């Protein structure tokens, strides 16, 4: 494929888990129950881009990341990395894929082996890809630690001796160790103090600019998305319901769900917003029509029968809604 092929390209990716085989009732055989974790995902990520995936828990954000990394096989559609199907990469291409695409996991502490010192944790990808002779490993790890704002003597400490913010920094340094071109991060700054979160966001932003990284960032926090990512994809129950440039989408949401998420984000001195009723429904055996119709204040008759496709409404913006919010 040519150099211009996008980093990631998802073509109608679906991931369906079969819950059971369907039982027998008096009326005959029941169909098997299916859980659609991802349904018709179309997304293109260009080199150097930063994309935020947002949505409530259960919307399929993490499943999408797993498909992107080749950790989960999609049940339908194609997931491409630079034009090649991620699931059927040749050994050689898979090795370079593993080096080029690095992941920062949601629970940094759990993602680091507690019995390894920081030196070995960060050194592991370097050794795996044979990026430097063993004698230079310590210097290389020290340089990575410095890059994430940690002193060199951290190399001799275990994860258990580090604070929550420090563990995240080590996880970031480990992700950078293989000199990746793409960073995929799952809630990399959630559950931290605002001060630590702000420090890490500035770090990630700096790294992205300096190293020209492509960033896929999962977050449930719209403010974090707006600070870090140029583009945003809002997910609901396995579908992308709205995409576009982050600032525009947040200033002027087209999908009622995006607007509800925005309204629910805390803002200084404003009363707590009128809340979205109910919770995200179970993704098992979904009813026909728009998935959001059950909670949507604007739902009309056709919303319960027709499923809206993700369609371009204006430059750079796509929305999956039969009655989008037009200003």
């Amino acid at each position, binding site marked *: 494929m040519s150099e211009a092929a996008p980093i990631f390209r998802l073509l109608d990716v679906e991931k369906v888990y079969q819950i059971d085989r369907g039982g027998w009732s008096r009326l005959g055989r029941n169909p098997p129950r299916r859980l659609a974790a991802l349904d018709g995902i179309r997304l293109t990520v260009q080199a150097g881009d930063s994309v935020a995936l947002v949505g*409530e*828990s259960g919307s399929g954000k993490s499943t999408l990341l797993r498909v992107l990394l080749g950790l989960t096989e999609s049940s339908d559609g194609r997931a491409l990395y630079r034009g090649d199907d991620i699931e059927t990469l040749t050994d050689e291409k898979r090795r370079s894929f593993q080096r080029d695409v690095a992941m920062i996991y949601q629970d940094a502490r759990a993602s680091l082996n507690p019995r390894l010192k920081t030196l070995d944790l960060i050194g592991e990808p370097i050794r795996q890809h044979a990026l430097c002779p063993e004698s230079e490993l310590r210097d290389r790890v020290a340089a990575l630690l410095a890059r994430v704002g940690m002193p060199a003597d951290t190399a001799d400490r275990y994860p258990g001796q580090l*604070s*929550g*913010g420090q563990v995240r920094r080590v996880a970031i340094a480990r992700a950078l160790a293989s000199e990746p071109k793409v960073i995929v991060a799952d809630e990399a700054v959630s*559950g931290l*103090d*605002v*001060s*630590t*979160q*702000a*420090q890490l*966001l*500035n770090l990630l932003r700096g790294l992205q600019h300096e190293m020209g990284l492509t960033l896929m960032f999962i977050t*449930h*926090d*719209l*403010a*974090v998305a*707006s*600070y870090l990512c140029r583009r945003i994809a809002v997910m609901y129950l396995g579908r992308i319901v709205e995409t576009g440039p982050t*600032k525009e989408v*947040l*200033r002027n949401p087209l999908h009622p769900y995006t607007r*509800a*998420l925005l*309204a*629910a*984000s*805390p*803002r*200084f*001195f*404003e*009363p*707590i*917003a009128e*809340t*979205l009723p109910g*919770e*995200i429904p179970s993704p098992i055996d979904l009813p026909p029509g728009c998935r959001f119709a059950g909670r949507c204040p604007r739902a009309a008759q056709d919303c319960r029968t027709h499923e809206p496709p993700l369609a371009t409404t204006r430059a750079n913006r796509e929305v999956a809604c039969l009655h989008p919010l037009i200003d």
Partner: protein
Amino acid sequence: MTQQSARRTEPRGQSVLPLTHPREPLLSLVDISLARNGHSVLDRVSFDLGRGETLGLVGESGAGKSTIALVAMGLLRSPAVTLEGRMQFAGHENLLAEPEAGWATLRGRRIAMIFQDPASALNPCFTIGRQLGDPLRRLLGFDRAATRRRSIELLESAGLNDAEARLAAFPHELSGGMQQRVMIAIALACNPELLLADEPTSALDVTIQAQIMQLILSQVRARNASCIFVLHDLALASQVCDRIVVLYAGQVVEAGPTESVLRRSLHPYTNALKSCVIEFDTETLTPPEGGLPAIGAMPAGCRFAPRCSRATALCTSQTPPLRSLEGRDIACWHPG
């Protein structure tokens, strides 16, 4: 350590009850100091909470927010912990000196707590009905039928539909939001006068967070109860709290009505915390460097001085007293 004990004897300002305090306090913490294994965790923490008031404890992790909630719940009563100061509550002069038998009539009944993570606070082995019925039977002496009736009422008012069927459910059968609703129902079962909510929504989605916060506020208001929220989100705190107490490294640095503390902040630390909050038009964040000092290695003078842009020689040598200024309490040598 010698340095620390020397500073312990310094007065932290004469103003124990400055202007900014409510007229009829339900709870008064007076110079609460707590040490674990000789290391100071809380240092002369004082604040009042009026009846029907909501108060937010904010600050970074390790500042002592949850510790204060546990002290107020009477849950830090171990030989490894030394506790000084007074906790006045609804006519009791000092609950810290109360024997365990006295606490047993208060805890869960007049003072109740909502914990951060409902999935780990609820017992996975017992049904919702059993866990909700426990305080009703044990503390209020309800019989079986009355317990069941009241449990259903409580779940319904906590916004769970199909309440009767939920009684037989186990915690894992409920979503995080529903589990937190159950926690709220349990905490409110005995109509407590004081509710402590330790990060009640940080494990939840924003849409559910808004629902749960509205639920807590409406239930607290309906009972004219008081509530202490432990929060790390300043924007959320500004939405739900009447008053704010900002903590840093175990000390109160700024406290008063939410409007004064968060809109016209005077302490550099409060301003630093505000500067970390991202709003949708934020272009650059300027968080304070570094983190809290380690317990057992507190700097001399103002504990925030090493991270403070205004710190002077005075700040690094002398502890600023907590004093009244422009409608709030503040501990800073160079406020503004």
